[in-house]
């Protein structure tokens, strides 16, 4: 990313250092992209609000109590003063008024929004974290070790192991143990013998390559891409017990395919680059090459797709909450505030508009920030703007 000044023939001194560090160059370009800057600013504000919101709405005696029901005060509009005659002292809203109004049970929408911010934040980050982890892992393996062929005895071993494990899991212990022992013996034998110079004719076909790691992983990506994603997420979330962790895991496990493709493509091209060849020639181990030399160079497209992925995950979670499959009820999320409020859309429009605009602004900020990152991190696009 940084520009080195070309070596001049005449000077014998060391090449001058780059004029700016990578970070400075990045920041200089970033400041020019005002939409992306606005996105980053909103994202930081959202982050602070979510963390602050978690601390003031949780605990046994929270300062803002999102679950406090005040039945006489239901559906009060935003910025209205509480009716002091019907409230007991503990039920006073902390700011002296209902900043965002109250819902149909008289719960303070401001507190509920604060609580929901944390849900959106964690769902976005954890789900995308899972997706990026799986994506880098599988994409890295496919890109780096892709050409390793899988021989028939690997497949055989895998079938033995799988059969043993599933027999074990479904309760038939004896065949399971037998299969597992057979698999371990097989593994031990092939590990001991190493590479026989001339395998006997009967065993030769076992060593024949059937397919490669790369093919296997990319076919798996194709398979996963066939599922209608929102419908799949909805199905799994509906079948599993309702909890926020299930939602994060399910969204994460159904959205890693893009990252895998990016990382694989990057790895395939990086593997042929001179600096990787040089590192190999120096005797650097595979692990160090992957983690120190290749991943830092492959991270740019992953970062962009992760940022946009967070926006998508927040939207998906809101959609699930809206359909009633989200986080279980007493807990507030932006999606279920909106979903509860839709019945009063003409009497209490704030119950729809406040969470709706909150989701819109946060998702928009992530999208703008991600697109800005894409422009900056891609030197080919940079000249255009």
């Amino acid at each position, binding site marked *: 990313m940084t520009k080195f000044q070309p070596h001049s023939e005449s000077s014998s001194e060391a090449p001058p250092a780059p004029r700016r560090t990578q970070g400075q160059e990045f920041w200089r370009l970033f400041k020019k992209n005002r939409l992306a800057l606005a996105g980053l600013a909103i994202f930081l504000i959202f982050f602070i609000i979510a963390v602050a919101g978690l601390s003031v709405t949780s605990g046994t005696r929270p300062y803002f109590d999102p679950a406090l029901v005040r039945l006489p005060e239901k559906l009060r509009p935003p910025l209205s003063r509480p009716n002091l005659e019907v409230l007991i002292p503990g039920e006073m809203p902390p700011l002296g008024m209902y900043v965002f109004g109250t819902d149909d049970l008289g719960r303070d929408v401001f507190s509920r929004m604060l609580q929901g911010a944390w849900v959106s934040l964690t769902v976005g980050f954890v789900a995308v974290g899972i997706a990026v982890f799986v994506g880098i892992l599988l994409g890295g393996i496919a890109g780096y070790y892709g050409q390793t062929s899988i021989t028939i005895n690997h497949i055989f071993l895998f079938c033995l192991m799988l059969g043993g494990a599933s027999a074990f899991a479904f309760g038939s212990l004896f065949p399971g143990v037998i299969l597992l022992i057979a698999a371990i013996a097989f593994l031990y034998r092939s590990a001991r013998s190493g590479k026989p110079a001339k395998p006997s004719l009967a065993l030769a076909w076992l060593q024949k390559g059937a397919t490669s790691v790369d093919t296997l992983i990319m076919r798996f990506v194709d398979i996963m891409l066939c599922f209608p994603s929102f419908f799949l997420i909805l199905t799994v979330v509906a079948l*599993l017990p309702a909890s926020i962790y299930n939602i994060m895991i399910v969204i994460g496990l159904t959205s890693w395919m893009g990252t895998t493709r990016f990382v694989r493509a990057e790895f395939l091209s990086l593997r042929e680059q001179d600096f990787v060849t040089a590192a190999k020639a120096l005797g650097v181990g595979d692990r160090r090459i992957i983690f120190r030399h290749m991943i830092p160079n492959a991270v740019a497209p992953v970062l962009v797709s992760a940022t946009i992925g967070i926006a998508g995950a927040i939207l998906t979670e809101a959609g699930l909450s*809206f359909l009633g499959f989200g986080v279980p009820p007493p807990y507030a999320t932006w999606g279920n505030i909106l979903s509860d409020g839709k019945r009063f859309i003409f009497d209490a429009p704030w119950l729809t508009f406040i969470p709706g605009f909150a989701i819109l602004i946060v998702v928009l900020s992530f*999208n703008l920030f991600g697109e800005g990152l894409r422009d900056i991190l891609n030197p080919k696009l940079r000249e255009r703007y």
Partner: protein
Amino acid sequence: MLSFIGRSIVQKMITLFFVSVISFLIIHLAPGEPSQVDPLNPKFTPEIVERFRKEFHLDKPLYVQYLFFYRGLLSGRTVSWKDNQPVLAKMWERFLNSLPLFIVGTIITWTLSFPIGIRSAIFRGGIFDRSATFFSYFLISIPGFFFAYILIIFVVTRFQVPVIGMQTFGLSDASTVRILMDRVWHLLLPSMLGATGGIAILSRYVRSQMLEVEGQDYVRTAKAKGLSWEQVHYKHALRNALLPFVTMFGLILPGLIGGSVIIESIFSWPGMGRMAYEAILARDYPIILTVNFISAVLVLLGTFISDVLYLVVDPRIRL
């Protein structure tokens, strides 16, 4: 060409097989059973549950259930667990309801995003381009259900027309024009909502393709030799930028069955998405699996068509 088609079909069959296995496993290994969907219902005595399990082969091992299910699906005999209707007939009926939404949505998407994308590419960096860019981010980011309510409020209070459902109840004795207008109003909002994401993404894509071509030497040559503005942009640039979009006709195929769950439940539209949602709520496994299977078939078919179209359209690709 033929060998490509043959290989591709074999590959897609294998993929489809694994999709069917994985979706079957996901559904059946998830905790809970369809026979326990309503444990509080006094009609669900243990004997009934036992009969239910026997009737639908739920007491057999998983691989037998798998074979039973897909044999039934391929021969068209699978029935819904909820009401014993044949699944395919039920889906066909819902599919016909979703079809107008899909067609109108696709037409809106394609007729709007091309002019927007082309214009923002030609006047790159201008006020139109920048506002179109921001607006497309806006459309991607707005939650569909929220946008739906904004539009409902707007249309209902401004134009005083009902929009929920497929048609207004009890209009049968009104004039034909009235009924037609009623149908159009009911159709317009959900299909517009279905199109929002598509407009945003497609117009960005048109813009980037167009920018790519506008930077080519032959466009500069066309400008240099003094061709008119229309000829440069619409004849020399646009025609070459259209290439990838021919293949996108294949990729819209999965949208046929995708029928948005959220939009259809907001508008009480009895389409595919809503049927899938109801099936999930009732744990009606045959319907869930069939929707999954058919949409996987459509995805594979779509990519296949788009590959073949690319081969036909782009002479640079030789196999």
